[in-house]
Structure formats: structure tokens, C-alpha cells
């Protein structure tokens, strides 16, 4: 046998070995065996530790002419209860007959109730999974995660995945949310000095009323059941009827109880309504891995401005020219925020210098916006407003929550030569007593196209 023949035989044997060895991995990753999760919701389970809800979409088969394939219009929502995320996913795998894959998951939603007990185990487990991308958004929903996903119907996009991608865009120009990802959360969780945040999500007013209606209906049916079971005690059935009436009244009042002011606005309280049943407004603050509290829309703007994560936003101030009216300004950071920290007698003195420009958006009749005095008046009012809001925000994160969500510690750490010295300083304890000094370089530049009315 020639040398060439031996080489060919060896080559064929090696080829067969590798085809056999690698085919199992290839088959498991074949698209026809996979079902991609777009959004994963995690709630507290009733019978098990957690309830997971996975939003998937039907992969449309090729259509006649174009032969294109893609995601179907109606996402599928499936859920189950289990002791961990992955045992839940495994159960759902059996249910749908495909392997659920997280490689295209755009958002993880945790319910507030679940997050109050801590989510570190879930976050570490998700990061431990090779399929999960660190850029996946993290939402804390004020309602159940299941309800949040059920009501997440895109308004404008045909594809649900595209809809979830807007999460990371809107924060740059609204300032009402921050683009928090699971990668950010994991990073802050691993740090002992910094605290984590998540996007605050909830149901919009229409979905809230819908939810209240359905819950009142279920209450009605419950009460009728109760009636059947305890027909003798008429008094108790009357009280049940009263409670169902109360809840229906509550649903009709939802719209009225909506919050308008961004200073108090959080997810699940706005008056926005439409096909999309959810809204993301504000931030959820975590202490270690446990939900600590909420930040309103204005507080989120403050957070984003401090962290240089905002391109522009609109704020509403009391009109300095026409009393009892409101004036809207569009803010633009003109320079990056400067943060300096001095430690005096063990107390961090944090100086924040913000550089902001603004344009007047709301105009009133018979006012000349070209006059420096007018612009100066507006500047001064806006500056006072912002200073007040920053003070409230910083007071809330430091004194009330004691959570350094703005990475102030990174500026303080430079004052220490070694890690043991820094650990001895105990930033977490000192941050509570931090003294803040906010300096605003604020300038109202113009009133856009119309300069005189």
C-alpha cells in the first residue's frame, strides 16, 4: 500500500470520528430544534420558588413569492412554576417540544414582589449562561412580570424583538428611563461599593383598568362561589358584593388617579394609554440584590445627567413670565459633568458641576424671547428648579436609600493608595453622611424658531 493511500485512509477515519463527535453539538444548535425567547419574566411562584414566563414568537415558514421567513405577529407567552429559572426553562422545553434559547432574549423582567427578596442568584445564574448577552435589558415591573409581558404589545413595530430594542434608544432623549442591562447589574452586584438599578416598568392606564376589571370579575365569581358555599350566612355574601363593587369603582378611578407631574411620575402611574399595555418610567434602586425603592422620572433625569448618559430631555418649570403657567425647556448637556470628591474629617464632600444649555419650547403671547432679561429670568427659575430637584435626588439616594448608584465611589477611591485602606474607610457607611454641592452652569440659549410673539 502506498504512502498516499495510507494518508487518505487516515484522513477518512479522522473525518468520520469528528463528524460523529461534533454532530451532536451541531444538531442541538440547529435552528429547527430551537425556540428563541424574546423576553423572560420572573415572578414569585405560588407553589414553587419562582414562576417564569417566556415570550416567544412563531417562526413563520417561507411565504410564497418572497420566500422570506421571520417572526410572526403574535408572540406566544408561556409560563410555569419551578425552583429555578433553568429548571423552569427545562419544563417549558418539554411543554413546547423544542429547546428554549436565550441568545436573542432582549429583556429580563422581575416583578417587584420577587425582587424584594433578592435577585442575585437569578442574575448570577443568567450571566453564567453562555447564551445570555450582557446587553439584555433588565426591567423591574411594578405589576407581575407575567402581566407585563402579556401587555407588551408593540405599537409601531411589527416585530416584538424590534420593540424591545427601543428600550435602549428612548433613554437618550427622554431621560425617563436609563438603559440598564443585565451586564450593568451584574457588574454593580459584584462591587461592594456601588448599588444597582433596573428599568422601572409597569402597566399603562388602559391595561391597569383592564386588569382591575378582570380582577373584579374574578372577585365576583369568587364571591358567587362563596355564596354557593355559604348560603346560610347572608351577611358575609353582602360584604363580598360590596368589595366587588369597590374594585369596579377603583378601575374606573384608575384614569383619574394617574400622575401628571414628572416629579412624582413612575411606571404604572402615568396617564398614557394605547395598544401597548406597558410603560417604562423611572428606575428601581437595589441595595445589594434587594429592591430598595423607586426613582421618579425627574430623579431619573438627575441620575442620567450626573452620569453623562443623556443627550437631551424636556423639563417643566413654573413660568417666570406668566404666573400660574408652566414652561417647557429642552435641556442639552453642553459639557460632561465634573465630579470632585474631597474627604474632610472622614466625610465625603461631593461637588457636582453640571453644564447645561436649554431651549424654550413653550411660548406665551406678547413676549420677546430675544431680550437678555427674559432669558435670564427663565435661566434663573430653571436653575432653582433643577438645583432643588438635584438636592432632592441626592438626598434620596444618599440619606434615604444609602445607595451609591452614581458611581461616586470611583472618584473617592483615588484618595486611597491601597485596597485595605479603602475598605477600612467603609464607603457605604460614609456615603450616608456625604455633603453634596451641586453647581449648575445653566444657560437658556433661545426659543427655537420663534423669538418674539
Amino acid at each position, binding site marked *: 500500500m502506498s504512502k498516499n493511500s495510507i494518508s487518505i485512509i487516515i484522513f477518512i477515519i*479522522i473525518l468520520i*470520528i*469528528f463528524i460523529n*463527535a*461534533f454532530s*451532536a*453539538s451541531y*444538531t*442541538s*444548535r440547529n435552528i429547527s430544534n430551537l425556540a428563541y425567547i424574546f423576553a423572560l419574566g420572573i415572578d414569585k411562584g405560588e407553589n414553587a420558588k419562582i414562576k417564569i414566563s417566556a415570550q416567544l414568537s412563531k417562526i413563520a415558514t417561507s411565504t410564497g413569492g418572497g420566500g422570506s421567513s421571520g417572526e410572526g405577529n403574535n408572540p406566544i407567552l408561556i409560563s410555569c412554576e419551578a425552583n429555578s429559572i433553568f429548571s423552569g426553562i427545562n419544563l417549558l422545553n418539554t411543554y413546547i417540544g423544542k429547546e428554549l434559547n436565550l*441568545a436573542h432574549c432582549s429583556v429580563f423582567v422581575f416583578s417587584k414582589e420577587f425582587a424584594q427578596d433578592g435577585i442575585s442568584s437569578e442574575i448570577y445564574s443568567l450571566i453564567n449562561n*453562555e447564551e445570555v*448577552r*450582557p*446587553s439584555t435589558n433588565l426591567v423591574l415591573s411594578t405589576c407581575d412580570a407575567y402581566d407585563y409581558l402579556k401587555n407588551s404589545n408593540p405599537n409601531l413595530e411589527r416585530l416584538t424583538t424590534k420593540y424591545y*430594542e427601543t428600550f435602549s434608544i428612548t433613554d437618550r432623549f427622554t431621560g425617563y428611563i436609563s438603559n440598564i442591562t443585565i*451586564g450593568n447589574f451584574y*457588574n*454593580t*452586584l*459584584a*462591587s*461592594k461599593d*456601588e448599588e444597582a438599578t433596573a428599568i422601572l416598568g409597569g402597566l399603562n392606564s388602559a391595561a391597569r383598568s383592564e386588569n382591575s376589571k378582570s380582577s373584579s370579575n374574578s372577585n365576583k365569581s369568587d364571591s358567587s362561589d362563596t355564596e354557593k358555599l355559604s348560603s346560610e350566612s347572608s351577611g358575609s355574601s353582602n360584604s363580598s358584593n360590596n368589595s366587588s363593587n369597590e374594585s369596579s369603582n377603583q378601575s374606573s378611578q384608575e384614569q383619574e388617579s394617574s400622575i401628571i407631574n414628572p416629579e412624582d411620575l413612575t411606571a404604572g402611574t402615568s396617564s398614557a394609554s394605547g395598544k401597548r399595555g406597558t410603560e417604562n418610567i423611572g428606575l428601581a434602586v437595589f441595595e445589594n440584590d434587594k429592591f430598595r425603592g423607586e426613582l421618579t422620572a425627574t430623579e431619573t433625569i438627575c441620575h442620567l445627567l450626573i452620569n453623562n448618559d443623556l443627550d437631551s430631555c424636556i423639563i417643566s418649570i413654573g413660568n417666570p413670565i406668566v404666573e400660574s403657567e408652566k414652561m417647557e425647556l429642552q435641556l442639552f448637556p453642553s459639557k460632561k459633568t465634573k465630579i470632585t470628591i474631597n474627604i474632610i474629617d472622614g466625610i465625603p464632600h461631593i461637588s457636582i458641576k453640571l453644564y447645561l444649555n436649554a431651549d424654550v419650547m413653550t411660548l406665551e403671547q406678547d413676549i420677546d424671547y430675544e431680550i437678555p432679561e427674559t432669558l435670564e429670568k427663565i435661566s434663573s427659575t430653571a436653575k432653582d428648579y433643577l438645583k432643588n430637584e438635584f438636592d432632592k435626588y441626592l438626598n434620596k439616594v444618599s440619606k434615604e436609600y444609602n445607595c451609591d448608584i452614581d*458611581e461616586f465611589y*470611583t*472618584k473617592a*477611591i*483615588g484618595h*486611597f*493608595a*491601597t*485596597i*485595605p*485602606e*479603602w475598605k477600612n474607610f467603609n464607603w457605604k457607611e460614609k456615603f450616608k453622611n456625604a455633603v453634596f454641592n451641586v453647581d449648575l452652569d445653566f444657560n437658556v440659549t433661545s426659543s427655537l424658531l420663534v423669538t418674539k410673539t
Partner: protein
Amino acid sequence: MDNTKIGSKEAIALLVTIAFNHIIINMTKDIIDLTASASLLNILYIGIIAIIFTSIICYFLNKFPTFDLVDISNYLGGKFLKWVIGLLFIAYFIFFAGNLLHMFSTCLQIIYFPYTKQFYIALFFIISGICACIMRHNAIYRSTLIIFPFIVISTLFLFLSDIQFFNIEKMYPIFGNGLYTTFFTGITNMFAFQGLAYIFFTPPLLKEPAKIKKVAITSVILSCIFLLICVATVLFIFNGFVDTDELLPLFSAVKYIEFGSFFQKLDSIFVLIWILSFASYLGITIKFSSSILRKLTNFQDDSIFIFVVGILLFIASIWQKNYVISTFLANTVHKYVFFILVIGISLLILISATFKKKIMRWFNK
């Protein structure tokens, strides 16, 4: 024309590729674990020490042009020392390359081949290494030079793409766990310059052995830059890396790279480049080990030894029960062996041989 000899560029690519593979798989994590926020300072410090050490060994190697450490050992202590040093280095190369292969194939198994046994992934690398080595005209060194630009570009691309996630202030406190850890215990991080072990066997490969100093120092500087870039990427992105550990930290850093919704999941490209680079590294190790064996046995052809070394490397890569054992071997045992064998014994042999040469010359006079 002698096609078996290599030029300076091939030699530099070869030495840097060796260091690069260790950096990707193991070193980044190990350096940050030890020196924390002072990692960059520590790398600059050990980089300077590595350059000084390289200059010293090149000075001694230049006293024996075209000789490698096995030849110098033969000159110094005869066949016995030649066999001892030769076998020690073969064991060093095979054992720790096998261990690194175990680590890398485990990572690949977790990331891409969950249903393929680690055994087959390691076998794939061994076969590719053997095939590259049995090609004539030392093709392995030339193929390494082809892959080298991809390694450089991918590393720079990783650093630049992740810059948006960097927080430079993570390099504080500047002295990390303290001056003692940064400047004394931290010297052990010098084992990141794994190319140093291969420098002792490079002179006979070079077309111009006199250029060994230029080749060696350039490769150490490039390795230091690679190390700085990779460690900076991990250090600046991850907050609590000191407290948490990841299997392949640079892979985690790669996962952050996204350019809108158009370019996502670029990690596959990086892993492909790392696979090619690792196959080159294994090929180089097999080639160096088989060349030493050939020298020890005075065989003309090293083909049979390529297979023998390949099989030994394969065995060295599959015996570990789990990742913990291979991490312990890579981070602790490897460190000690590197300092004893590569820094200690080798330098001692070079100094002794130079001393012997001077005495012999004096006697001849």
C-alpha cells in the same frame, strides 16, 4: 536556499503567539486576582524586569551562536546534563501546554460544543498541531506569521470596541492590595511572558542567530503590550472582578461588543481567531519538543517525535478531572516551575557555560 530557517518576523510572531495564548486563557484572570487595581502598574513593572532578564539571557546566548540550551548544556555537563535539561524542558512544554489545552477545550465545550466530549475537542487541536508540524520547511512558523496579524487586530479591536464601557477610575487604588503584593509577590506574574522559555531554543532556528536579542526583546515588549491591553480591557469593564471570577474573562468582554442591532454576537469571530492562534501555539510546542527529542537522540528526522509528542500532549490534556485541577496547575504549579526551570536553572546553565568557556579559553592560551 535553506527554507528550514526563519526570519526575525517569524520568530517574533512565534514568541508573541505563545504569550498571547497564555494571556487569553489564563493570565489575565490570574494577574487581576493577585494585584487587583494595581494590575497595570504591576505589568509595567514585570515588563521592565522581563526586558532586563531577556537582555541578560541574550547576552549569554550570543556567546554561543547557533546553540540552544540543550547544546549549551551538552557543552557544560556532557550528555547527562543535556538529557536532564532536554527532558525537563520537554516535560515543561508538554505538561503545561496540555493543561492549557484542557482549559481551552473546556471553554470551547461550554460555549459552543455542549454535547461534544472535551476529549474530541482536544484531539482536534492535537491533530491540527501534528499536521502543521509534519509539513515540510517548518511550515508551522510561517503559518503562525499569517495568523499573527489577526491576533493583533482582534486584540486592538476588542480594546477599542469596549472603550465605551471602560471606567478608567477602576485602576484606583493605584497600589491595589499593597506595595508588597504589587512589587514583591507580583513578580510572580512574570510567568505571563511564556515566550521566555522558548527563547532558549530559538537561536538555531534563526537565519541570523546574532539577531536573537532584537527578536527576544521585541517579542517581550509586544507581549507586554498585549498583556496591558487585555488586562486593561477586563479591569476597566468589570467592577468586581477581584471578587468574582470568570472562566474566560476576555470572552465575557467580547460579549459586550455590539454595533447597534446590525453587528451582534461578534464573539464567534474572536473565538475563531483564538482557535487558530491556539492551534499555532500547540504546533509550535510540538515542534520545539520534538526538535529537542531529536537532538537528544541524534536522529536526523523528527517526524516520529512529532507523533510521540502529540500523543503525550493529548494525554496531558485529558487526565484532569475538572477545571479546578487545571486552574491550580496553571496558576500555582506552573508559576513555581517557570521560576525554577526557566528563570533559575536555565540562567544558571548559561552563566556556568559562559564561565566554562572563558576558563577554557584562558587554559588554551
